[in-house]
C-alpha cells in the first residue's frame, strides 16, 4: 500500500493533535445549537453547500485546507502580506488567511479547485501554463485566483496597470514577467 506525502502528514497530525482547533463537519451536529465556544456556519464552496461547526478562530484558509480537504489554496505568510491564500468570496478576490470562517454565513466561496469546467481548464489556468507563469508553484493558486478577477477589470489594461493590480500576490521565484504575459493572453481572450 502506498501512502502519499499528504496522507502521511495527515495521519501524523491526527495522532499528535491532542487539542484540535476545529470540530468535524457533521451534519447531525448542527441540528442542535452549537456548544459554547463553537459556531455553526453554512456556506457554499465551489457550488457545494458546506455545514461546519468550528472554533471562531478558524480562518477560511484553515477550514478549506484542514476540514474540507481543499489544499489547493496555499498558506504563505498567514498574515495578509503574500496573497498565496487568495480565494473569491461572493465573487470578489479576498485573503482567506484574514477571513474568519464564522463570518461566511450564507456566502459563496470559490477556490482554485472550483474554476475549471470539468477537465477544461479556466482560460487563466491555460494561460499560466502557456506562458510558464510559475516556477515552484507555491504562489500559483493565489496568482491565478487574483488574475481571474484582474482579467475581468476593464480599467486594468497596460502592463503597469496589471502589475499594480497584481501587487498583492508575491512570487519569490520571480516569475512575474511570465505571469504578466499569461494575464495579457487571458485578457485578450476575454475581450
Amino acid at each position: 500500500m502506498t501512502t502519499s506525502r499528504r496522507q502521511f502528514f495527515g495521519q501524523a497530525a491526527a495522532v499528535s493533535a491532542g487539542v484540535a482547533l476545529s470540530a468535524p463537519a457533521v451534519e447531525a451536529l448542527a441540528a442542535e445549537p452549537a456548544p459554547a465556544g463553537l459556531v455553526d456556519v453554512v456556506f457554499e464552496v465551489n457550488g457545494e453547500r458546506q455545514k461546519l461547526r468550528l472554533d471562531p478562530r478558524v480562518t477560511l484558509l484553515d477550514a478549506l485546507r484542514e476540514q474540507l480537504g481543499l489544499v489547493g489554496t496555499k498558506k504563505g505568510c498567514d498574515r495578509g502580506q503574500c496573497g498565496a491564500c487568495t480565494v473569491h468570496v461572493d465573487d470578489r478576490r479576498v485573503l482567506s488567511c484574514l477571513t474568519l470562517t464564522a463570518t461566511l454565513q450564507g456566502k459563496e466561496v470559490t477556490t482554485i479547485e472550483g474554476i475549471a469546467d470539468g477537465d477544461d481548464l479556466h482560460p487563466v489556468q491555460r494561460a499560466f501554463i502557456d506562458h510558464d507563469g510559475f516556477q515552484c508553484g507555491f504562489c500559483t493558486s493565489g496568482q491565478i485566483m487574483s488574475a481571474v478577477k484582474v482579467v475581468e477589470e476593464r480599467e486594468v489594461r497596460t502592463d503597469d496597470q496589471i502589475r499594480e493590480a497584481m501587487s498583492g500576490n508575491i512570487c519569490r521565484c520571480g516569475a512575474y514577467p511570465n505571469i504578466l504575459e499569461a494575464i495579457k493572453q487571458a485578457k485578450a481572450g476575454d475581450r
Partner: protein
Amino acid sequence: MHAFDYAAASTVRGALDLAGPGSAFLAGGTTLVDLMKLDVLTPDRVIDVNALPLKGIRLHDGALRIGALERMSDVAAHPVVRSVHPVISKALLLSASGQVRNMASIGGNLMQRTRCDYFRDVTSACNKRRPGSGCPALTGVNRNHAVLGTSDSCVATHASDVAVAFVALDAQVVLRSKDGDRVAPLEEFYRLPGSTPDRENVLGPGELIAEVVVPVLPWARHSTYLKIRDRQSYEFALTSVAAAVDVKRGVVQDVRLAAGGVAAKPWRLRAVEEALKGGVAIERTFAEAAESAVDGARPLAHNAFKTALLKRTIVRALLDAAGAR
C-alpha cells in the same frame, strides 16, 4: 490567537448592546484578525458588524456621505467619489492590495493600527500596547517612524492613506453609541500620543463609526494624492500628501494640504496652506511655503530624511494638483 466569543449583530442596537470592555467590532478583519494572530489584540468578544446597515455612498446636503461599512474598493470606484473628491479615490487605490481593498471597510481603515514593528511584536516593550513599558523605537530602528506630533512615549505613524485625504477635506465622522450620534472632525477624532499613546482616538467604549461625511468643495476636483514609498505598490508611505488647490489667473486662491507617513496622526498642513494663499502658483512659491511643513519636527536617528522628503512631496503634489485642470 486567544479564544473569544463570536457574535454576529444584525442591527446597530444589537451590536452596541453586545459591546463592552474587552470587545472588538469586526468588519473586514484586515487589521483585527492580523493583530489577533500576533496576540497584539486579545478581545474576549468579537462582534461581527458586517450585516449592519451602515452602507451607502451618496451626496446629501452639500456633503459626500460614506457608510462606515463600505469597502475600500467600492468607495474608490464609486462615480460620485471619483468626480466630487478624486483625491479620496486616489488615496484608496494607492493603499494595500486589491484583495485587502475588497475586504477592508472605510470605518475599519480609519481604525487601523500603526505599522510600528515594536507595537506588532508582543515580546517587545511598547507604550501603545503596554502602557508604561517604554518605547524601543526612540533609540531602535526608527526609519519608518514619525517626525511630527510625536512624544517621548511614542513615535509611531498613523498608517491610513485615505484618512490623510479626509483630513485635508475637513471630513467628519459620525460616532454612534447607545446615547445617540455625535459628530467629530476626523482631525480631532485622532489624539496625539502625549503620555497616553494607548489612547489613539476619542471613541468611547462601545461606540461605533457609523459614517464619514466629507463636505463638497467644488474646486477640490483638482486634487491629488502623492505617496512615496520603498516599493511602488502594496507598501505603506514614507511620506504622502493629499493636495487640493484652487488656482485662478495663476494665483493660489485656496488650498488644502495634509500629510501621511510622517506624523502620529493624519497631519493637516495649515501653516503651508496659509503661506500659499495669494501666492503665484509656481514651483518656487510651493517650495518656499513647504518649508513651514516641518516646523517643530523631531527627527530620529534613521528618519531625518523624512523632513526633506516631505517638503519635496508637498511641492510635487501641488504641481500635480495645480496642473490637473
